């Protein structure tokens, strides 16, 4: 981000804090590697779960618990819009709402796109042996705008949808604890609750409340993420408005 807006004084300061553009670049590449590893692990887990479940790819992608959007999501989106406009009741959301599925694929797609273009930018000498040189320029645009999208989306839309909306304020701790109050589950995702209750999985997975430390560190992480995220968003908006070129 500092690089994208490097013409802004704040970006140069930020890069300076990180040890200059060079060391910021090293940091960036290190994080990129971590991110790619995480992505690969995630893919590996999907594959291993598929094997454990003994299901076909088709069943994995379209069965229950899948994050792949389907027609039901489109219907729920429509119903949600009606609900917003008070033209209907709150839709009976299932395990994953459509915006959560969007969030997931946004990241999935983002990591793939950013990762691949990033690799191109990391090793332009090698990529240009196969691709034309201008593709590096294209990769730069995609890499940077996609990152802008990701940061912007996570810290505004995602934050609001998941944590910041008044009924979840200030944040949904489920991310860290993995736990949710049954009552809340029932309210939020009635269809999922019913499915769980019907299959008996609900009773099987009743657990004691999360330890206090888990809550505490979750809150700390959340707060940091919030501060960083909002500062970045603030700076992006500031740069877009006052220093765009």
């Amino acid at each position, binding site marked *: 981000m500092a*690089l*994208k807006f*490097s*013409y802004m004084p704040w970006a*140069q300061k930020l890069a300076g804090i990180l040890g*200059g*553009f*060079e060391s910021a*670049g090293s940091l960036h590449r290190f994080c990129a590697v971590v991110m790619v590893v995480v992505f690969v692990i995630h893919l590996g887990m999907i594959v291993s779960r598929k094997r454990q479940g003994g299901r076909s790819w088709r069943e994995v992608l379209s069965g*229950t*618990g899948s994050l792949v959007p389907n027609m039901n999501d489109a219907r729920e989106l429509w119903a949600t*819009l009606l609900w*917003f406009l*008070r033209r209907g009741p*709150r839709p009976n959301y299932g*395990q994953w709402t459509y*915006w959560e599925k969007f969030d997931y694929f946004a990241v999935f797609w983002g990591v793939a796109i950013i990762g691949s273009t990033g690799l191109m930018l990391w090793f*332009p*000498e*090698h990529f*240009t*042996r196969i691709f*034309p*040189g*201008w593709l*590096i*320029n*294209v990769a730069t*645009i995609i890499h940077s*705008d996609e990152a*802008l*999208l990701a940061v*912007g*989306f996570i810290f*505004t*839309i995602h934050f609001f*949808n998941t944590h910041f*909306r008044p*009924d979840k*304020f200030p944040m949904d701790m*489920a991310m860290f604890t993995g*736990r949710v*109050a*049954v*009552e809340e*589950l*029932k*309210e939020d995702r009635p269809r999922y609750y019913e499915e*769980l209750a*019907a*299959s008996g*999985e*609900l009773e099987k*997975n*009743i*657990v*004691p*409340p*999360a330890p206090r430390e888990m809550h505490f560190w979750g809150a700390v992480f959340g707060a940091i993420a919030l501060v960083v995220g909002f500062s970045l968003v603030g700076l992006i908006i500031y740069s877009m408005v006052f220093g765009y*070129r």
Partner: protein
Amino acid sequence: MRIWWTCLALGILLGASSWATGEELTSAQCLECHAVEAVTPPRIPSPPGEDLFLLPESVHGGLECSDCHGGVTEEHPLEKAALPRVDCGQCHADEAELLARSVHHPPVGAATEGYPQCYSCHGAHGVFKQDDARSYLFTAAWDRACSQCHEKEEAVYRESLHGTAMVKGDPLAPHCWDCHGSHGILPPENPGSRSNPINVPEMCGACHAENAPVAAARNIAQHDILQHYEESIHGEGLKRKGLTVTAVCSSCHTAHHVLPHTDARSTIHRDNVVKTCMQCHTLIEEVHRKVVEGRLWEEEPNKVPVCIDCHQPHAARKVYYDEGVSDKDCMACHGHAVTGATRVLAAVDTIELASSTHARTRCAQCHTGAQPSLHRPCETIAAKVDCSICHAAMVNDYRRGVHGQLAARGDPDAPECLDCHRGHGTQSKRDPASPTFPRNVPTLCGACHREGERAARRLPPERQHEIVAHYSMSIHGKGLLQSGLVVTAMCSDCHTAHRELPRTDPESTVHPDNVPATCGRCHHGIQEVFETSIHSASVSQTERKLPVCSDCHSAHSIVRTAEEQFVESVIGACGDCHREEAETYRDTYHGKTAYGPGKAAKCYDCHGAHDILPPSDPHSRLSRQNIVATCAQCHRGAHLRFAAGYLTHATHHDPKKYPALFFTFWAMTALLVGTFAFFGLHTLAWLPVSFRELRHRKRLVETTGDQRMFRRFDPRRGNCISS
């Protein structure tokens, strides 16, 4: 001739025979015929006998006629025979002998005509003692003897100091024979002659030597004249080297027209003395060109010191500086400042002067127009010191420069010589204590050019300010002031010391056309490379402004090219002309990271710095031959597809030149805008219902909510609970 001699010999024989036969006449007998009336004034006896009436009173009054005119007998009146020649040598043998060798005696065998006889000077019968007013040689009647023949000399002598004194009857006034001798006058070329150069100093010294009658009795400004002369280069030449062409007294003072130096006609008058010296020292202005601008001798002689201002008249020496008598004269009054006596006007710090580069410069060399004969010779000094007498080139430069031009207009801010150079204490620029020593120059110039000082205040706001402060922080300033490198460029290295001109003046060293040469005086290697680059006027024939050193490096704020300040400024500097290139460069990775001291490629990393050439030039760093090597400086493993393929100045704003980038950018932008627009509205629309939900849930919690915790997923294992 031979016939004449024969006749003479016959005459003598006849005379001798008649004396043998007849009685000698008595004086009374002679006077029977030769009684001559008195003539006043008595003329030099020709024909003889006109002064005969003086004989009885003359020194020869007691002699018989025949004592001189021997051999005159009774036959004389009858025969009308020629009388034998009177031979004064009969009695005056010594004088006759001297005369016989003198210029006044015909050479052996030559005719006597035209040569003076004894009576020519002494008179024939009216011979009196010299102090007798009737004597031809009486001092007050001096014009009756020598001047008969030496008319011209007499006329000149009459005007001279000696002649006028003679007329006044001054007993010390020299007579012709006081200098030339009387009977034994020899030609001047004869070393025995008193007027031979070798003898002239002694001859004049007879009166003018210290303690000699004239020197003792008369008020003559000079002292120890003869002694000084003998010790002088002239005296040495004459006495030790035997050079008779050396200047002697009469060479400068003339022989007969001796006049005091106060007399405008005098050869030693200030106005004439140069001419006098130049009789021998013909090309002296050539010799003095370094010291005194030669042209001034002729055009403005009043401006330059005359010979005697530096070379003491009688004590002229090769090394004349050590003993400047005139300096002592000046210091008698002006040197008091140091001795602690009464302070005087224009006191000269002699200690300061002694340590200055002008220590060996005589006062009169700078302070021209002094009149040595006055009690206060400086009374006549009217003009300010004109340094151009010696430092002509510098002063000409100064007059051409801004400082001199302002001074000519009478601007009170204009600096003059002494504002930068000390007066009596002026020092070499190599002397660390000198204000013009390199390390002191910024302070010196800063006295006026520092911000807030008078020179800086005159500058309009758009001109360069904080010059001295910027310079001090620049690579040059740090080199000079912090590292102590005296070879570092300082003010006068670029602006010149005396000929400072604004950069708008085509003759200025800091005019853009001349800047490469100015910087090249030290950075010569760079200049050579630069002159072959596209930015050099010798390569690019263009109307557009070409950059010079200072456009990229600045003038006073020059920093190391490795420093952040330069790196940042140079892209802007290139961008001043190459606007589009600079802007598009900033759109690429290189440009985005080129803030601060990073490794990101700047303009010069690819294009070169001083050797910039268009990529079409095979020698360019960006030519097909060189581009891979250029990129490989950073990108190890670079190849032509990479080097030539990557768009280093690409922009996504140009659909014609870079369609791929343009459409990628707008596709991404559309994606972003679309996503944010949809979810933005989505979120906004959510807000009101979310508040309603909040109230609803609070109620639920307060009533009968199931507060058991359900595990949606295990954060450690990451698997979600599916139904």
